[in-house]
């Protein structure tokens, strides 16, 4: 437990000393803010919801998760610091969870900065705070699943660009899995929406908290953290 804290704090520190986290947050704010206000304007401020923001944020989160996590392992492998971590008396799982939590802290910070969108709505209208709450919960869960997937991709290579591309590939693949649904038949038709990252997100934006969706995102997070640990361990044998 102590080691997880040490590693995640160090990871958060690295994020905060490099421009990456700030640039990503700034772009995230700018783009999602644009969608937020465009949507409001399009409905002539009738629908005081964060729909516009959510439409943009759900896609941006996929992209930025891949970018935020690409360095987590790949960079350390390249610079050689990986050897320091893996020979320290620290369990592989502690490294995995510590690093993941570091990136989750950055993502959470990013989401917190967007809270001024709903805040504006409260000032100037009467938004459904319940739906906003569940939407943020959804974004957080989706984000954590995405980070876990991106992290896994980062363990596969010592090249950050390769990790970002692989991570983005898996993420967008799982996201657009829903689109394949129409071609599928039988059991696959049932299964595909269940596996899709996007399918489970919709409920949250409608103010519905389905336990299955929470379980889904937590399971994806856990699964890919587990795979990351596996990937780190097998690399020792290669």
């Amino acid at each position, binding site marked *: 437990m102590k080691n997880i804290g*040490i590693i995640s704090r160090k990871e958060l520190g690295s994020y905060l000393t490099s421009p990456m986290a700030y640039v990503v947050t700034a772009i995230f704010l700018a783009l999602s803010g644009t969608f937020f206000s465009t949507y409001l304007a399009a409905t002539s401020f009738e629908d005081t919801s964060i729909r516009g923001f959510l439409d943009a944020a759900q896609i941006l989160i996929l992209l930025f998760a891949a970018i935020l996590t690409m360095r987590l392992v790949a960079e350390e492998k390249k*610079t*050689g610091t990986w*050897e320091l971590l893996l*020979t*320290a*008396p*620290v369990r592989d799982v502690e490294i995995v969870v510590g690093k993941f939590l570091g990136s989750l802290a950055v993502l959470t910070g990013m989401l917190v900065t967007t809270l001024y969108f709903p805040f504006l709505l409260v000032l100037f209208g009467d938004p459904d705070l319940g739906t906003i709450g569940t939407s943020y919960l959804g974004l957080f869960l989706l984000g954590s699943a995405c980070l876990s997937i991106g992290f896994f991709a980062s363990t596969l290579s010592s090249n950050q660009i390769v990790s970002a591309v692989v991570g983005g590939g898996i993420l967008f693949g799982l996201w657009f899995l829903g689109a394949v649904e129409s071609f599928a038949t039988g059991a696959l038709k049932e299964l595909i929406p269940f596996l899709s990252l996007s399918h489970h997100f919709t409920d949250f934006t409608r103010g519905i908290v389905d336990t299955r969706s929470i379980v889904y995102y937590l399971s994806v997070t856990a699964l890919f953290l587990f795979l990351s640990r596996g990937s780190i361990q097998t690399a*020792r044998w*290669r």
Partner: protein
Amino acid sequence: MIRIQNLTKYYGKRRAVDDITFNVEKGEIVGFLGPNGAGKTTTMRIITGYLMPTRGDVWIAEHNMATHSLEGRRLIGYMPEVTPLYMDMTTRAYLTFGARLRGLDGKKAGSRVEEVVEQCALEEYVDVMLGKLSKGFKQRVGLAQAIIHDPQVLVLDEPTVGIDPIQVAQTRKLIKELGRDRTILLSTHILPEVSMICERVIIIHKGRIAAQDRIENLSTILKGGRRIRLHVRGPAREVTERLTRITALRDVRYEEPFHVVEFPVDKEPQAEITGLVVQAGWTLLAMESMEMSLEDIFLQLTTEEEGER
């Protein structure tokens, strides 16, 4: 303290380490010597738990690294070949992180950082980003990191590569000091370095151990000793006995059918030897110099290996 048994490592199909066995006793400083690609780094990575062997075992004290890696790792300080620095951290932050990672609590970590900073003469750079340090100082931070938790075992992979002569001398002195109460395995391809720091040397070539011996046994050569090989027709025992009486000779050995004599560089016993042989009525069939530097030994050992294949 370090026990290695039948260690073999394949990278895919490439065999990097081939069935090596050796021990490093508690308190010993052992030099691990070999040309490029011999398998030094690979062996060290297995010792420190970074890699798993294909076959064989490593014990650190009583901990088998295959089953009790964490306990083993706790005892080791490791300086990898590529100094593992986070360039966006200051020396202090980095060493503190290293100390915490090794299980030191905040307060202890702070005081240890002060100590190793002094030990490695890094005072001037404690609050400087690692990315801005010169190569030599980066190397020192790497060493500082390895000793931050005061480990019983030190594994140093080419600790003096790429630093200037003055710093090399200082680093060697530091390693020697550290070795007073620690077990050290140090890899290098600089031969004099081994003679300066180590008590014993293990020479590895193409993943196999080509030779291992105490430095004393190589000391004549290291200290600039010379050897001559004589082929004398005469009673071997008596020849040996007579040769031993020549004071200039440090060592006389009979390696059938030759007599090998060793003497310091500043002596010239050839005339005396010839005289002795003639006087006794024997025949001197051959007398040839076997001058060998450790480089030669090293080369010979490693090329002999090649010839066998």
